[in-house]
């Protein structure tokens, strides 16, 4: 991958790649992202032509279907950066950032023109927390959260982009929050795009492991940087009747997370683990 764009002067203006899931399902995450960026003096441009980066088709092996979407994405964002209308592209998602800045090169390997443009664009494309911490140099955003906060490291964010320190730094500065480390925080939640449908049962088993660890952590909210993992984890938490919810980090950093009240009794017993973890204790010893 090409080295990231360096900024001599702080970037003034960015193009928001909001991602289709945030656009259609979680607009509040998009608004929180805009608020965070504007609060730090960055003007946000929203190219309204954008739709989806094509990751679902690419991941499922349908590269012919994904390629027009990749070219379309490049045609929308690349000229903005090349002409200097924006300094960077920012997305509130590790997975979609990985798609456009890592996998486009593979998807468009046989299309040298677009591939070169994809690589040029990749150098100026940043995931939100990466942009805040590494480019703007911001860690303290003045957020406040009263309760226990955990962090789930999404796979593409952690292992493709290598982003972990940045979201953790931002969360550690959230006032009043008690940070609790999630057991297996870096393990996959089982979403995996179409995997969640094609291998629904395995996906569920992996997700239940995650929600089991969330229950054990006693967190009030689990922050993460991808709404896809968020939809999956929350789908399970809600079905299981847990009070904890997964929330996007931008929502935490803009004080938009309401903590569900704890049950009355102070010494609430944690829900019994599913039967297949009955062996956990024997394991730990």
């Amino acid at each position, binding site marked *: 991958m090409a080295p990231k764009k360096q900024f001599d002067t702080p970037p003034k203006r960015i193009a928001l790649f909001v991602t289709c899931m945030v*656009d259609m399902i979680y607009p509040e995450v998009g608004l929180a992202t805009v608020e965070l960026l504007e609060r730090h003096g960055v003007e946000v441009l929203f190219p309204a032509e954008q739709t989806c980066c094509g990751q679902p088709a690419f991941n499922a092996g349908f590269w012919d279907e994904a390629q027009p979407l990749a070219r379309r994405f490049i045609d929308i964002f690349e000229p903005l950066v090349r002409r200097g209308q924006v300094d960077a592209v920012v997305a509130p998602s590790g997975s979609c950032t990985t798609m456009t800045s890592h996998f486009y090169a593979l998807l468009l390997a046989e299309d040298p023109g677009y591939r070169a443009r994809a690589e040029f664009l990749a150098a100026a494309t940043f995931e939100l927390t990466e942009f805040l911490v590494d480019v703007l140099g911001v860690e303290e955003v003045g957020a406040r959260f009263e309760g226990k906060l955990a962090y789930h490291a999404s796979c593409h964010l952690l292992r493709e982009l290598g982003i972990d320190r940045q979201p953790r730094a931002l969360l550690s500065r959230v006032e009043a929050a008690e940070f609790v480390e999630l057991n297996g925080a870096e393990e*996959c939640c089982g979403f995996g795009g179409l995997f969640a449908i094609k291998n629904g049962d395995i996906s569920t088993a992996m997700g239940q492991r995650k929600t089991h660890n969330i229950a054990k952590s006693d967190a009030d909210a689990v922050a993460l940087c991808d709404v896809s993992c968020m939809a999956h984890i929350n789908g399970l938490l809600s079905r299981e009747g847990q009070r904890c919810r997964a929330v996007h980090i931008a929502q935490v950093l803009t004080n938009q997370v309401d903590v569900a009240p704890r049950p009355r009794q102070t010494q609430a017993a944690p829900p019994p683990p599913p039967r297949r973890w009955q062996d956990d204790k024997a394991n730990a010893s």
Partner: protein
Amino acid sequence: MTLSTIDLTLPYKTRVQDALSNKHLRVALERSTGRMAGQRAAAMAAIDEQTLRDQVRQMKEHVLRNLPDLLEQLERNVTANGGHVHWAKEGVDLQRILVDIARKANVQKVVKAKSMVTEEVHLNQALQNAGMTVVETDLGEYIIQLAGEPPSHIVAPVLHRRVEDISDIFQRELDMPPTLDPQVICSVARGILRKEFLSADMGVSGCNFAIAETGTCCIVTNEGNGRMSSTLPRVYVVVMGIEKLAPTIEDAFLQYQALCRSSTGQQCSVYLSMTSGPRQLGDTDGPEEFHLVLLDNGRVDMLAKGYGEALCCIRCGACLNVCPVYREIGGHAYGSTYSGPIGAVISPSIHLEVTDVNKLPYASTLCGACREACPVKIDLPRMLLELRRDVVEEHDAPLFDRAAMQGFSQMMQSRFRYETAGKLGSLGSNIFASMSGGNIKFMPGPLAAWTNSRDFPPLAKRSFRELWHERQRQRQSIGKEMKK
């Protein structure tokens, strides 16, 4: 009896269901994979992990670039040491060669050290069909041979069994008195296997790596059964996949180091047996006859098809131990000799008969934990992506997937279609969700695979783009008022 017959030829979906509903399997997986992954991480953290991985990777790439030359160099040196070298193109060729060697030497009983490559070609079955007795001598392999099961893990073949299950197998097959003490169970096997070693005519093992410059075949073991299989019987046969080469002794020890640390988390294994040929004049022990059989079975095709990177694999099993999918379903659900991420990558390419092999590249979330653990830095997620593309190009993808993806692509190529679909979707999903308390609890068709166990959020009533444009309009009107 807790035993279940394991049938790898069942459809993928059934294999996965069986695995997920097998409580004992889940306990066994839980106990073992986490421990092995932890041991690997600790052993690698104790050294300069990145340098070792880079060095081994470089060495393996060198091997693949020079494969024909190195294999011939190995053949020359083994022959010069007094051994015989055979080339097996396919699995059946290997079976035939082994049966021929055994018949010529009048072999009745064969003892085997653990070897995945002989599992790959079903060698035991072939030798038994030819009238020979075959005894697996690796403890794990011995247990599954008694139970009539294939291995479920590259390094730990009986990882799918709890000690309770193993005790049951021994009580049933060997009349062992009931016990859960691993030492007692081991000693029962040890007593039996000792007699087998002494009465065997031929030993067969795989090969962790062969050194081209000296013609030496190396096997890495912890139980000593490899040493006895290679030295006690009259005839010793090594079977190796053509990629298991190290050019020099230094290279071999590089790979040895990576293998021990990545597979079992050891600094070095208990045994490293190196055989350069048959017993020489003046040697006190060793086989009278030594054969090396080189197996292709699709490996050359893998290089040609662009999946050569997978031939860097040193079969340490680290990717299995860290794989969140393997941890849920175990090895047998993959239906192949090779399971886990590496199995999903090589099973479609190697000449194996695997039911629903095209489902294997999809048995991953592409989370990347395997690549992180791999001592040779194989980019397994990328290869899984490319294999999925192959499945689609070969028209093996389900029709529903194809229709869905074509529709998806068409929708996303137009802002108008995207926004219209969004509005309709928002309307529909919100009506649906309002009937079940805010979340969607039921979706039709294949999407039910999600809602069977998980809620799904409805689309937002107003999309981000609608809210954004409204916000811009408000700002503009505020701006105009300020100017007034």
